[in-house]
């Protein structure tokens, strides 16, 4: 589903991504962790073409992201993205946030788009908030609306960029539950997170990044039990307490 080959990226002289190689198959959930500034978010943004890169190749569903002839707008309809700070449109209700892209990009009728949006709000557990504005929703509710907004385009892949980092502890679970549900439902997911409980439960692979490189990877449990790299061990000790 996603193939990343020798991906490197620089901001000026500073190298943010250093020779990243990774393959993600359909239906897999890959968890990416690592200290801040290690290039996790940049990696996600290279996959859906929000950031250009200088070297290597990213192929999503058979389409090269960096190819000049690729229609990035079309490609992005297949890759949903959920952000750390939710990024809901503040001037629209939850329902309008969800229906905007299906109506404008997929040319769905308002009725169809709203029916689908209500179904998604039901799925993330807040159908009663359909007509609320983001400012009147809690962080956890906003993030669930944001997930519904991504799902409304019926993407093949969902990317999460630290989806629970801006949430109060009691709201983290409600968002993780939705994500676990999606993962078990067969969605292909890349999740940047430090929620190791989540990783243990659903990750098919865990990647640890540092200074733009993947320095450790493992399939679920083995990763936590015996990390090979001292940097990984150090990091895991800190976040697992």
């Amino acid at each position: 589903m996603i193939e990343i080959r020798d991906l490197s990226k620089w901001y000026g002289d500073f190298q943010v991504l250093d020779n990243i190689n990774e393959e993600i198959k359909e239906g897999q959930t890959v968890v990416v962790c690592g200290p801040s500034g290690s290039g996790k978010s940049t990696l996600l943004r290279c996959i859906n073409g929000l950031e250009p890169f200088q070297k290597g190749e990213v192929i999503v569903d058979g389409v090269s992201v960096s190819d000049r002839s690729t229609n990035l707008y079309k490609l992005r309809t297949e890759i949903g993205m959920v952000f750390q700070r939710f990024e809901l449109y503040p001037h629209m209700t939850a329902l309008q946030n969800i229906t905007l892209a299906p109506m404008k990009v997929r040319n769905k009728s308002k009725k169809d788009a709203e029916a689908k949006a209500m179904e998604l709000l039901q799925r993330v557990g807040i159908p009663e908030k359909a007509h609320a504005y983001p400012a009147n929703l809690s962080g956890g509710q906003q993030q669930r609306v944001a997930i519904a907004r991504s799902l409304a385009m019926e993407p093949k892949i969902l990317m999460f960029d630290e989806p629970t980092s801006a949430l109060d502890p009691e709201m983290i679970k409600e968002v993780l539950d939705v994500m676990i549900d999606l993962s078990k439902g067969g969605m292909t997911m890349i999740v940047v997170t430090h929620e190791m409980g989540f990783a243990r439960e659903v990750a098919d692979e865990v990647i640890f990044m540092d200074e733009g490189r993947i320095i450790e990877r493992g399939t679920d449990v083995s990763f936590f039990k015996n990390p090979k790299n001292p940097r990984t061990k150090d990091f895991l000790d800190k976040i697992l307490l």
Partner: protein
Amino acid sequence: MFDAVAKNISYLLGGYWITVKLTLFALAGGISLGILVGLGRISKKKWVYYPVTFYVNLIRNIPLILVIFWFYFVMPIIVGRPMDPFPSAVISFIIFEATYFGEILRAGYQSVSKGQIDAGYSTGLTYVQTTRYILIPIALRRMLPSMITQSIVTYQDTCLAFVIGLPEFVRRTTIVDNIEVRSIQLFGFVAILFLITCYISSVVSRRFEVKRERGY
């Protein structure tokens, strides 16, 4: 005590109507063009950014009265025939106000979080759609108080069109004054009418500000 006003009321209000029309045209055109000017000012494309920035800096450093004046006297040389004062004034105001509204909106655009724009792109919206449905509406709402203030200034500044002989409110009052010689009464009437209308607008503006504090 308002006898001179009462005697000439329909002529004076006719002038006021021209003032109102000029304001409405100036605002509609100035804000529409200003939306584009603001976008040009945040553009990463150099061939958009530099010309727009030059235009903004040029116009904002010339007094409005000179813009009105020059446009009225230069246009006949370019198009080959004289222009009526009203369309000439409308175009001058649009050219002038667009730079101010453009700068207000530039600040508004820059206040919209990049994440919200990325969220739009990540659902497959194009640049035009993201700008139309996310960037512009959020910026306009956020900048509403400044926009209303600038609109009130525009409304007051329409008097300057008297320099090219446009018979708007103030000019007509001057004409009546030349006949009636009741300056305090006549210009007092003008002041009161401006005071009331501007005050109402600023009250409306303040209500929007309160709303903004509540929401986003």
